[in-house]
């Protein structure tokens, strides 16, 4: 489970670059300006230049081909400063899908553009508030020219900024992904702002016509495969959130005084913090192991990813809440940063399945 030399380099350079180019101040600025995309295009360009937009894309298409451990390391570092970007939607979810299920033409067209940070594409799977990729109501009817898509999608990440969408739809009970451009007639989107200031959109498809090639190969299996990639990367991001909130809290505990004592010297707080440390360590171990397993292509990768997402989601949520509590009143103010991690953890724990959802899957996969 040791990181390779390249992975360590990637992590260290990402940490330095993100701290310099996307500090929390940038997140606050975007929020204050009510930026429609919710991320800085300059920062995303810098990510592309560093190769991160193409972290999963084969070198032949201009990517780094660094695997999911690499993607997780980047997401974990981005989380530490709340750096917003279409990394998850475009570089992880959609890049994985096109790489595996796209035609040669789609790959040749989209992958270099994604790697270059020029195209933002969003995945539309969920239709219900609670993640459940098994429940797809959107339909793709075959037409002489290709497909006619109908339905609605919610919580589509970066949906307002996207140039195109990868949408899950059903034809006679068979689910597949369809790539449709944002400007397609009949496609409309309503932007929404989440509690961590992430921008999503609700998508409506009203007789959207797509060409025959719009359909990706791989069907429902491909969807599960890319969702697992996204879940693994989200787990890594959740670890970054928890680790950063924890580090800040530890520093606060060592400096804040009450009752003439550093509050970090109170044993009741020490034990809670120690337990939190154990949990955060475990979340990262689980995530790293699951990502390595997914990269290796082993058969039990879906089980491990479900476990890692459940664990990281749970730890992300509880650790950030505990960190806020340990800050006391100041933590409740918007001016202070610690609450921002709580918000981000809640959103990422929810996306692509919350801890309860994955625990249920784990039980089923383990045969009980």
């Amino acid at each position, binding site marked *: 489970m040791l990181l390779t030399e390249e992975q360590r380099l990637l992590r260290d350079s990402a940490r330095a670059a993100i701290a310099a180019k996307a500090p929390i101040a940038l997140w606050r600025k975007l*929020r204050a300006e009510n930026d429609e995309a919710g991320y800085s295009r300059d920062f995303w360009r810098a990510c592309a230049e560093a190769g991160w937009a193409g972290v999963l894309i084969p070198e032949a298409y201009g990517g780094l081909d660094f695997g999911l451990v690499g993607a997780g390391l980047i997401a974990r570092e981005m989380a530490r400063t709340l750096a917003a970007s279409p990394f998850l939607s475009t570089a992880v979810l959609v890049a994985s899908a096109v790489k595996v299920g796209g035609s040669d033409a789609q790959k040749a067209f989209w992958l270099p553009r994604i790697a270059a940070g020029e195209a933002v594409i969003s995945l539309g799977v*969920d239709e*219900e*508030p*609670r*993640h*459940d990729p098994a429940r797809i109501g959107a339909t793709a009817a075959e037409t002489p020219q290709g497909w006619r898509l109908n339905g609605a999608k*919610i*919580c589509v990440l970066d949906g307002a900024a996207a140039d195109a969408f990868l949408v899950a739809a059903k034809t006679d009970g068979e689910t597949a992904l369809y790539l449709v451009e944002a400007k397609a007639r009949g496609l409309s989107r309503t932007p*929404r*702002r*989440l*509690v961590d200031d992430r921008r*999503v959109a609700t998508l409506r498809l009203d007789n959207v016509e797509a060409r025959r090639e719009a359909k990706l190969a791989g069907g429902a299996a491909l969807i599960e495969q890319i969702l697992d990639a996204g879940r693994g990367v989200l787990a890594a991001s959740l670890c970054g959130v928890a680790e950063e909130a924890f580090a800040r809290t530890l520093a606060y505990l060592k400096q804040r*005084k*009450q*009752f*003439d004592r550093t509050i970090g010297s*109170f044993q*009741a*707080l020490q034990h809670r913090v120690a337990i939190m440390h154990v949990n955060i360590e475990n979340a990262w171990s689980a995530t790293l192991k699951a990502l390595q397993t997914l990269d290796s292509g082993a058969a039990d990768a879906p089980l491990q990813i479900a476990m890692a997402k459940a664990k990281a989601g749970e730890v992300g*949520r509880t650790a950030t*809440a505990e960190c*806020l*509590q340990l800050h*006391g*009143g*100041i*933590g*409740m*103010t*918007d*001016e202070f940063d610690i*609450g*921002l991690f*709580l*918000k981000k953890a*809640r*959103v990422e724990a*929810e996306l692509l399945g*919350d*801890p*309860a*959802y994955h*625990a*249920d899957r784990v039980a089923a996969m383990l045969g009980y």
Partner: protein
Amino acid sequence: MAIDRRELREWLEANCPAEMRQPIRGDEDICWGGRHFVFQSPAQKLWLERMAARGFTVPTWPKDYGGAGLTPEDAAVLGDEMRRIHARPPLTSFGISMLGPALLKFGNEEQKRRHLTRIARGEIRWCQGYSEPGAGSDLASLRTRAEDRGDHFLVNGQKIWTSYADKADWIFCLARTDPTAKKHDGISFLLIDMASKGVSTKPIVLISGKSPFCETFFDNVEVPKENLVGKLNRGWDIAKYLLTHERGAISGGGLNVFDNEALDKAARAAAKAAGGRLPDPVLRADIARAAIDSYAAAATVQRYMQEATAGGELGARSAVLKYDGAELNKRRYELLMSLAGAEGLTFDGNFGPESELAQRWLRSKGNSIEGGTSEIMLDIVAKRILELPSE
């Protein structure tokens, strides 16, 4: 002589405007009073005036200070009868709930006459200045200073978490009058007119959005000596008295934190939408456990209250209720958010139906901090109820 319930009932029936019998929909329906208060309707103003005229805004206070001089039992009858017709409280204020009891116990005659009557009539709105950025749980470490300048105190410092300071006319606050004494022994209790030169406020935005909280700054504020309540340097006694009062109010009055109805309802709706059971069995298990724990905690509230009424004292048991209610409410909002899924995540920093759940969820995180942190409550339980030794 006990109150005449029949007369009271008739009077309320005749004098409580129909509008004032509607359920309170939000903060805007609450009558806070004060110099700058804008009545939401003529009925709201009339109801206040009529009730104040009979001393019913503060029924247990002496008649001389604007009250009705009722016994607690008679005041309970008044409460009953008001609830019977769903009458709104005519006036809500920190003057009634916090400063009043302190003045009645520690104030001099002149202070009582001057301030209590205005509180009773809703003429002056008060806020409370206790916490400071460096003095939260350890309130007595406060650093706002009041220097003796002969006929007045010169006050400098900063308060935080002063609810509605931007809307209040006066503030009652704690300030250090003897920096050389041990920390609990050099604090005094002062009344300060917010219109004084050098007082300023700044609203606090919470992670959940706008809030009634403010920071309050004192920059060379001159406070007349007559505004000292109780003895010089003995303000901590008053503060302790009021903190007990406040905690009682939070745990006793703020019982909605024990109410699991919202969660039950949301779970039932989700189950119904799925045609039977909640589809996620793990979430369902967590929700069932929260329902059980809420039931048990609410039973303790009921038992403690009845035992206190029957002659015991709530005393340190309020720390049990404060702790438990806060932790339960946080847990409940986590589950409500999980039930709502992506729908619950929408939030734009403003109030409104789309942001409401996330806003409430975020706000609930403060439950275990305000009014004494959960950690302080556990210390109280350990030391005062269980009598575990200090180091």
